[in-house]
């Protein structure tokens, strides 16, 4: 079930109403049943995969807590193998097989291992990572094992964040699953407003830009440098609005039920450095990798070269997390390169910045911000292109930058794209630099209502209502 569908609107209203009507002790059951229904609206049979990992991790959690010494580690390994095994089969099997095939061909050998004709279960990487964080935290002694099987199942399946995050930690969400949430006018209203903001990003910006992007990326051989540059910028904005829009709807939706999910995006394209970008982009995944991969590898408390290697490992794994394709690996590798370069250049930049006055410093930060956006956008080309060949073709086509670009369906399409971007940048500018304005939570009710109504009618007049899939569902 997609957030941007009328089916979800009915589902949301019914579940929220029932939630507050149900007595507290039965609410877990309502939310679990609703989450199962929500998930089964995609491919019903895949609920069995979720059930498998839920049972394994639930038992593993209890055994890890009870066990001592090596046994503790053994149960953790069983849990991790089960989770990563499911990921490996459904997400990486064909990719690995493909690459073995290429290697075998190069060695004049035959690879007779068959391909699996299976669809990737929706949001698999998200709920698998959330499940893994549960057993790891119990192993580390930061979390007690959940004894209530229904509540644990809900921890993995809570419908607002089930298919595209935020990837929660047990310490934050499990206590909330047990707590009694009284009806709160404030939470409900603020939750609905955050959902509206998410719908704006998804329907007005992301889905509008996708019309242009989806025309250019599949056929790079037909487009010149100007068109490639525009489509890359459009995709950078599209993926931000698509994913952060989803997160806003998920967080808002959970808030209407009294749950507080972690912030997943903090206006990342206003970042002035690549490390700042990653502290503001998909925060729940970045912190997951930091806590469970980067720090265990030694983080930055190792020699310089090992530190750089750790960064490369994290970003390449992050690329692979997104998808089983060389495109994503290159995307991750590029971000690894950016991180290392940023570390190398940091002393130089810091020294340079001490010589600048306030005005020059502001301009310098603007240039740095623009540079970060360009680097991130360049990497997105690999992320979005169908094949590596397509990505390189697009980059090659950039040499004809300056030729008349493809403007889609003229005023209607391109004009709407520009309006969407201007609206987004304006509102986010206020959010980032003038937070005191608080249009949607202004103390004056007339201003507050007008702001919310304006947002709703902008969605209705300029939104794209074709039920476009969220990009991150495929991960």
């Amino acid at each position, binding site marked *: 079930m997609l957030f941007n569908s009328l089916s979800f609107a009915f589902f949301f209203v019914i579940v929220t109403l029932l939630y507050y009507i149900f007595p507290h002790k039965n609410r877990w059951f309502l939310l679990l049943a609703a989450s199962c229904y929500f998930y089964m609206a995609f491919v019903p049979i895949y609920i069995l995969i979720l059930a498998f990992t839920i049972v394994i991790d639930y038992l593993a959690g209890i055994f890890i807590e009870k066990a001592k010494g090596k046994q503790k580690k053994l149960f953790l390994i069983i849990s991790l193998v089960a989770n990563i095994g499911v990921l490996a089969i459904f997400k990486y099997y064909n990719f690995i097989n493909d690459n073995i095939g290429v290697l075998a061909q190069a060695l004049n050998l035959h690879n007779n291992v068959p391909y699996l004709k299976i669809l990737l279960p929706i949001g698999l990487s998200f709920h698998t990572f959330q499940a893994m964080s549960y057993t790891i935290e119990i192993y580390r002694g930061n979390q007690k094992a959940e004894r209530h099987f229904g509540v644990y199942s809900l921890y993995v399946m809570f419908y607002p964040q089930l298919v595209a995050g935020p990837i929660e930690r047990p310490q934050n969400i499990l206590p909330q699953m047990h707590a009694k949430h009284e009806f709160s006018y404030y939470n409900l209203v603020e939750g609905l407003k955050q959902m509206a903001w998410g719908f704006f990003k998804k329907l007005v910006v992301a889905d509008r830009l996708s019309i242009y992007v989806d025309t250019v990326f599949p056929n790079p051989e037909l487009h010149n440098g100007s068109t490639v540059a525009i489509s890359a910028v459009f995709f950078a904005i599209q993926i931000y609005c698509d994913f952060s829009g989803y997160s806003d709807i998920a967080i808002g939706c959970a808030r209407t039920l009294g749950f507080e999910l972690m912030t997943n995006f903090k206006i990342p394209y206003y970042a002035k450095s690549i490390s700042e970008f990653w502290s503001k982009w998909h925060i729940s995944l970045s912190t997951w990798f930091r806590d469970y991969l980067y720090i265990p590898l030694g983080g930055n408390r190792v020699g310089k070269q090992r530190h750089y290697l750790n960064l490369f490992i994290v970003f390449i794994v992050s690329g692979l997390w997104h998808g089983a394709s060389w495109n994503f690996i290159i995307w991750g590798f590029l971000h690894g390169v950016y991180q290392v370069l940023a570390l190398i250049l940091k002393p130089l930049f810091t020294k340079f910045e001490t010589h600048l006055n306030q005005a020059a410093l502001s301009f310098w930060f603007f240039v740095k911000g623009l540079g970060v956006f360009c680097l991130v956008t360049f990497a997105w080309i690999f992320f979005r292109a169908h094949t590596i060949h397509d990505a390189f073709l697009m980059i090659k086509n950039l040499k004809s930058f300056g030729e008349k670009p493809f403007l889609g369906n003229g005023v209607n399409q391109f004009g709407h794209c520009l309006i969407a971007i201007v609206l987004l940048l304006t509102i986010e500018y206020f959010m980032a630099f003038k937070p005191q304005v608080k249009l949607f939570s202004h103390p004056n009710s007339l201003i507050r209502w007008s702001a919310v109504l304006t947002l709703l009618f902008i969605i*209705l007049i300029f939104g794209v209502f074709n039920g476009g899939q969220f990009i991150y569902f495929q991960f």
Partner: protein
Amino acid sequence: MLNNNAILFFKKFAIFIVVVFAIDWLIGLGLQKLYFSLNEGQFAETTKALDKAAPDILVFGSSRAQHHYSSRILSQKLGLSIYNAGRDGQFLPYYCAVQDVILQRKTPKIIILDVNIWELGPNEQKYMKLAQLLPYVSEHPVLRKYTAEISEFENLKLISKTYPYNSTLLISIYDHVFKNNEPIDDRGYTALTGRVSETMFKKYSAEKALYDKKRATQNIMIDKHAINYYRQFLQKTKDLNIKTYVVISPTILKEPNTEEKSLLPAIAKKYSNVTFLDYAVDSTYNNHFKLFADEFHLNEIGAQKFSKSLAELIKKDL
């Protein structure tokens, strides 16, 4: 259970809903006026096709129909009235919807259906683009079955008066403010000025060769739903005994005979009232880039040449 906090919420929410519907009605009314007061542009042409057109010859298709079939030449040569209902970026579901509406009003003598070679290929947009019909649903309820294809519960969304005019504001304002510089024909046809240069043609030829090579290796899924629409369109012309021409109009390069393309004549052959004409392999037009305004469309000179030749052919059948 519900407490005072909840009662306050529901009270305010009820007020909010009333305000939303009131504003929706007002904005919808404004957008409706803006939309239906247009005299030129694609919205005005759609209104003419759906609300007024009742000619002897009807042309259906996408932008290639709109720019390739000169109403003046066809009308003069055949001595019959004509309307060109071709619309930019549209596909078979749209042609069927417009055919349904116009044929309720008048049965034409001749129908020309211009089809693209990728008409039966996969493209979700062909159903999304039926949203262009939303402003007309209240006047022509027959369109509901087509608009239902856009998304689940699509017709339920029409409870909003603003929603049918979604994404129309910008172009409505544009068409009111800026006048069309292209030659105007009030019978739907729009001539394209400009000409493909030799450099552009060479570049496009190279790009197209790459594209065809890639597409030849892809497993193109045939859209069975689109085939049903194609059959529905042709069946309707057969039921009403309308002489029908299904035409792939001229293309700048010779088009390969893909499965999706070869299905077009194969299906048309089953209808005795239908003549299928393929100009995508006609050397009179292929590679003659001076007859084209861009990679996909004939310019005015090309359209005149094509329309004359088509009129001669139809005349022989009359």
